[in-house]
């Protein structure tokens, strides 16, 4: 006989050994986020958790990862898909090792972001949104990243690079493994 008494929905206590896709370290990082909210509001951690999971997976999300996260955060899977497909930082296809997100919005445009974009397109022989054949770079056009006084700018990995010129971005990319 199993007898359980429950208040509201059960807060999942997930046994990590059952869940193979997300690492213990990532779960630990996610748990830190979860701790910021009332236990009832576990779902609030979904965006940070998706970031963590995406990073661990080399830059993109998969259905299986999202499903696992849904279970962990006690959310319907569709609710995770909704979030993951709404925010532009989440990728759903494999991307290059380095994601170069170039802002082309007004302030950057006024100061020559087009030139940077053209330069990269030519340099890598790819279009925006595509990945170099060696899988090293994905160049993505993004909306304003809130660094307009440093225009033109881009985000690579976790870092902003401002006052870009074709030469400057070459030098930055050069240094990346």
């Amino acid at each position, binding site marked *: 006989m*199993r*007898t*359980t008494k429950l208040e509201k929905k059960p807060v999942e206590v997930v046994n990590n050994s059952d869940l193979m896709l997300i690492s213990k370290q990532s779960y630990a990082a996610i748990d830190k986020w979860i701790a910021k909210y009332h236990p009832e509001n576990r779902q609030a951690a979904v965006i940070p958790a998706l970031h963590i999971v995406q990073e661990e997976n080399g830059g993109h999300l998969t*259905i299986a990862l999202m499903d696992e996260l849904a279970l962990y955060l006690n959310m319907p899977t569709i*609710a995770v898909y909704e979030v993951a497909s*709404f925010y532009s930082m989440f990728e759903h296809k494999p991307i290059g090792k380095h994601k170069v997100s170039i802002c082309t919005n007004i302030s950057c445009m006024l100061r020559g972001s087009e030139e940077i974009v053209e330069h990269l397109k030519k340099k890598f022989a790819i279009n925006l949104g595509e990945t170099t054949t060696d899988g090293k770079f994905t160049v993505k056009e993004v909306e304003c990243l809130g660094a307009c006084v440093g225009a033109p700018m881009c985000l690579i990995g976790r870092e902003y690079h401002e006052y870009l010129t074709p030469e400057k971005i070459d030098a930055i990319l050069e240094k990346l493994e």
Partner: protein
Amino acid sequence: MVSIEIDGKKIQARDGALVIEAADDAGVYIPRFCYHKKLSIAANCRMCLIEVEKAAKPLPACATPVTDGMVIFTKSPKAIDAQKGVMEFLLINHPLDCPICDQGGECELQDIAMGYGSDVSKFTEKKRVVKDKNLGPLIATDMTRCIHCTRCVRFGAEVAGVRELGATGRGEHTEIGTYITSNVSSEMSGNVIDLCPVGALTSKPFRFSARAWELVERDTIAPHDCIGSNLKVHVCNGREVVRVVPRENEAINETWISDRDRFSYEALYSDDRLKTPMLKENGAWREVDWETALQAVIVGINKTITDSGADRVGALAAPTSTLEELYLMQKLMRQMGVNNIDHRLRQLDFSDQQQAPVFPWLGQPINNLENNNAVLLIGSNVRKDQPIAAHRLRKAGVRGSKIMTLNAVDYDFYMPIMAKIITSPMDYKHQLAGIAKALLAQTKQPAPNGFEKLVSKVKITASHQAIASALVEGSVSSVLLGPQAINHPEASTLRMLAQLITLLSQSQLGYLSEAGNSVGAWMAGMLPHRVAGGKDADKTGLNALEMLHKGLRAYVLLGVEPEIESAESVIASRALNDADFVVSLTSFSSEAMRQYADVMLPIAPFAETSATFINAEGQWQSVAGVVPPLGETRPAWKVLRVLGNLFGCSGFDYITSDDVLTEVKQLTKDCQTDNTVVWCCPAPITTNSNADILVRIAEVQMYAGDSLQRRAQALQNTHDADFAAIRINKACAKKFGLKDGVKATAAQNGTEITLPVVVDDNVSDNSVLIHCGLRDSAALSTDFTPISIRPV
């Protein structure tokens, strides 16, 4: 109340009402897409924009509450301009494929667009194309037509209780769907078809079968579960049922129906449909005319009575039969001296039938379910058994009411469950005794006669305490017995204990009975011990189980397939095959029936006959037939009337079914509606006496409850129409050496069956769930009895 003015009309509106509600009440139509009175407010379509005096911008009527003195214009130039603007936006990406759209002629978008005249759109860009989704066998999609009102998404979250559909993506790229390929599984999913204001979500079985303007709409009642949902049937060419939609009845089904009630009509045109009377002669079936068939019945029954006596004849009826049919069947039988009459085919314990209430019922109106503060469900998978009742309970649960369960399977109820006891069916009485004992201690009331001894060995657990307190504290609380309790081998004990719990906690005792006319069958006297109106019969006949066990010489069947609908399917099958004469009044024939029957009389099913159903709350609902009976089919009440006359019985001179109804009403007008019965102490309860015995949980598979559902193809293709399997939890599976997906043999009372194993941790210990109602599991003898399992 506040005074407002809409389009120059001065009206009174409820405080806090939304403008759209006040306008609807006043008969002023404001166009809308996202607004639906049963769903939360989204205010996203912007179609309902109206002008309000002193407001700078147009306001959405669906999200703006009325205020005293508010002056509203719904058709002023400003309002019309705003509405037209929205319409134009909606149409830029909407395909103009109305001629081939299933929604054509009943499309809210089309209707409203027409209302604004056909402005040529200034939009010259390409239209958006959205890939279609496969949502399963019930719902067809054409997502390019979607206008993003999100009614379907909100329905899932708020009513169905499962978020399956969502809006993924962003902005113009937002798409409604499941994101990944997956079927929607809600038992209420079909309601999104009605909710969708355009042709994005339509009925898959209905697809392309008719155009809206070829259809006429007629009213009927769903016969399947004990709710009696109100339906509208769409009839093509006056002959064929092509679609079923809800008919609003706030007190019963609100604006919803279950998928079962929506799609079962497909069975009307299944290959199994019997269209002409059939007679078996020398083992061979042939089609005959009615006269020949009826004559054969007269000869067959009379011969059995003459040869073996009337007590060797039995009558079994499905509890989904109409009140008129049930009444006439028992009347006919009794006049011929046959007292073996029953409709309780799944029942196992009849020991307390003499004390039983006149009719076991819900004990309260259906809509009162949502007012309960505490509800204990016993042996009930209410979500699948009676989806509409579950919806009411869910509303209570979501509001904070304490919903509690005692079940053998940890069902996925989509509502907060305050306490649950998941245990073997053999342990139910022990658990109920514990709750009763806790209540006695809590309320300090005197124990009824013999109770102390009964429960002396029972230990009170924290769950018992919690459930007891919740029932006591709830100002409105109920204890509801579901089919698995009603049909339990110790049902009388469970009933007695449940009643004791309700008396001690001042709760309502209720029955979530099995079928559309379970209450009607009790009222009509389709019972061995009672005649219509609950009066004792002069002579008590055999109950359904005894009739099958004893092996009678002749059986009269009404809309029933006992070989899968009886609690003892193997015995039922044997009894019918061994009988000298079996006549089946039926809408369908099956291989098994052709084996055991001698005459098959085609009777009109649901929708083809006038009918009265009494639902679980005791509501009588009468409807006319909506289409003429197919082929040579005749309404069963007429067949029974003719049989009555042919047998020379008296009182069978009815001209209309109303005459029958009037007679039943007359006989039942003094019926008492009390579920409580006199205390009668059950045998003492020892602790966990059955702890180690493996028992079969006999749950009727969701879409196997009656002959219509079993033949509705689309329903049979759903997830809920699960295949027959041995469902067992991980620990038990390990104990018996079973593996998920691998076949195993189940043995019971000398019968055996081999089925795949499904490891399901929701099944309680020492139990095996093998659904019944399925031909694939019918070779196993009995519900709720010990069973053994071994790997093949």
